[in-house]
């Protein structure tokens, strides 16, 4: 697949269909891949990669990239297309400046999960079907790919590309994921248990802002947490309450717009399962206002910014909150 995509990148650039190509650039190892804008064919030939470690979602880069001169080609995995379309819907990306190529995805691997299996000194990974052959400085190892998939890929919501100019490979389907299972488990906890769960998770936060900066739904020109006039622009948690404020306020701000791309949890250096907050909002919205997937289309109005006469009454939400 890498070769096909690479050839496409070269073709788009040399035919003049695109002036720049946003893709993945190889690193020192197999897994440390960096998003990069390619402008010459030679660089694509040498450095362009697409493998099971190409997790980064490029949609947010397009907010800035589509405002530059010329056209940019971008490769989008199925879940990335939801973020892309959501940003288009919010008028954050200039559509005619982007050439979107949908590419297939078999699920991305989380290098942390490989490390958690006590595999140390990883120098190379080869995909052999369902198995990953891992070279380490301590010898060869093998793991099943399904055991080291990123959480968001284990619970993949869709293999379908919702928007593109061109598609490589065959179109997939929206999947019946189990992504709300853990949310249900947390909902079933007692209030004290739930508080303890989140306190344990959120107290690890170091306020690095990686979750916010990577989030395709966080595109404010000036974030409230960076605004000295807001009174809440503290860079560190002054007490344990502060971390909750940051993450819960952020989850509220992206509610109804979060496509559940999972970038927040991917980038968290403290491995906080931040996506669970967003999924709780998505699940609630589905239950209160009917099934809704942000970014799935350009037309439907988002439940939280739309009023229907049959919308559930606020009291329903209050009652549910009491449970």
């Amino acid at each position, binding site marked *: 697949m890498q070769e096909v995509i690479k050839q496409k990148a070269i073709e788009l650039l040399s035919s003049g269909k695109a002036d720049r190509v946003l893709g993945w650039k190889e690193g020192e190892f197999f897994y*440390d891949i960096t998003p990069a804008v390619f402008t010459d064919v030679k660089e694509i030939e040498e450095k362009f990669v697409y493998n099971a470690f190409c997790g980064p979602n490029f949609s947010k880069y397009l907010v800035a990239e589509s405002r530059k001169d010329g056209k940019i080609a971008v490769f989008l995995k199925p879940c990335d297309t939801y973020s892309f379309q959501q940003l288009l819907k919010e008028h954050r990306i200039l559509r005619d400046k982007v050439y979107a190529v949908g590419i297939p995805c078999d699920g991305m691997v989380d290098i942390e999960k490989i490390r958690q299996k006590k595999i140390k000194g990883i120098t190379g990974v080869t995909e052999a079907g369902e198995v990953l052959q891992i070279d380490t*400085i301590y010898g060869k190892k093998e793991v099943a790919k399904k055991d080291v998939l990123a959480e968001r890929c284990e619970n993949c919501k869709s293999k379908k590309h919702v928007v593109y100019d061109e598609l490589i490979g065959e179109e997939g389907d929206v999947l019946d994921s189990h992504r709300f299972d853990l949310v249900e488990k947390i909902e079933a906890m007692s209030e004290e248990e739930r508080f303890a769960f989140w306190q344990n998770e959120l107290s690890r936060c170091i306020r*690095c802002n990686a979750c916010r900066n990577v989030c395709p739904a966080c595109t404010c020109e000036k974030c409230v947490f960076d605004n000295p006039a807001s009174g809440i622009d503290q860079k560190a948690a002054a007490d344990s309450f502060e971390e909750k404020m940051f993450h819960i306020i952020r989850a509220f701000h992206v509610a109804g717009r979060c496509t559940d791309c999972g970038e927040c949890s991917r980038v968290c250096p403290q*491995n906080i399962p931040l996506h669970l907050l967003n999924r709780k909002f998505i699940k609630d919205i589905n239950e209160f206002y009917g099934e809704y997937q942000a970014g799935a289309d350009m037309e439907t109005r988002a439940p939280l910014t739309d009023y229907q006469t049959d919308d559930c009454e606020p009291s329903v939400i209050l009652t549910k909150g009491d449970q």
Partner: protein
Amino acid sequence: MKKISLEKLNALFAEIAETKALYLPVDTETGAQYQKWEEGKTLSSALNTVRSAKDFFFPQTESLVHFKVEGKKIEIMDVRDEGAPFVIFGVRGCDVKSFELLDRVFLQDPVDTYYQNRRNNAIIVSLACSEPEETCFCHSFGISAADPAGDVTAWIKDGEIIFRANTEKGEQLLAPLPLEEGGEAKAEEARSEIEAITKKLPLQNLPLEKFKAENLMDFFNDPKWASLSQSCLGCGTCTFVCPTCHCFDIRDFDTGHGVQRFRCWDSCMYRDFSQMAAANPRLSQLERFRQRFMHKLVYYPANHEGRFLCVGCGRCLSRCPISMDIVKVIKELGGERDAK
């Protein structure tokens, strides 16, 4: 040297913890973290902690001073305390080295007494790295994974842990403990094994030769910063997991009963780091990204006899959301990248 069987390690921890607070890396669901030892906690087998050991001396937040404000009057309250001796067990060579680099900032005149108190109270037991990771490159900065510094150096080998006191503080820590004499041969064996592994690590011999004060302007003006910083998210992950990053902010927090002035970690990657009322000298991410690496590779060495502000722990390599790290910067700017 002294030694004890690994089976008795927890009893040893209990013994140390009788008189002093003892901290050590403990495995958690989300990686190893330093925790205070208590019955039931065991030493992690992970190579390194997710957060670095700098937290012991330069915590993420700390109170500097409190104020009571009443009308036009202000009262100042010194909230410093002397602290008490504590032991950090199992610090890796890279993190031990980071203390020395931070000392050069915080203990340089005028001394930062908050940092100094904690530093004086700490007894550091380092642990040699039996299984270095591919992301390790401490060797490039002259650090030995096989024989780390610290008040005491420890090696784990064949079911035993061997200790060598390096300082008076270290001697005093070991003296009352129920240890056996000996272990020299095993320590030597462990050392040469680790050195052999170190030679096999992929990130060795980084091209650092050109990073010198006299090339400051050349590096600053290098056009490659543009592509290096291109996809940087501007988050603070690298700076916060880094054992040597030490930039901080000072802020006031109104508690309703007075004002707490506290210091917290800050990141040169943030836009407001250098924002003034009317101007910002580092407007784009390129300038902020450049500041971080210039500080580590050129500015700090220029002020500290050529020492780099990096210890090769590899945390930024595994934590950067977009995998743009100091190794890539050194290779890109310091010389031709190896042909693959």
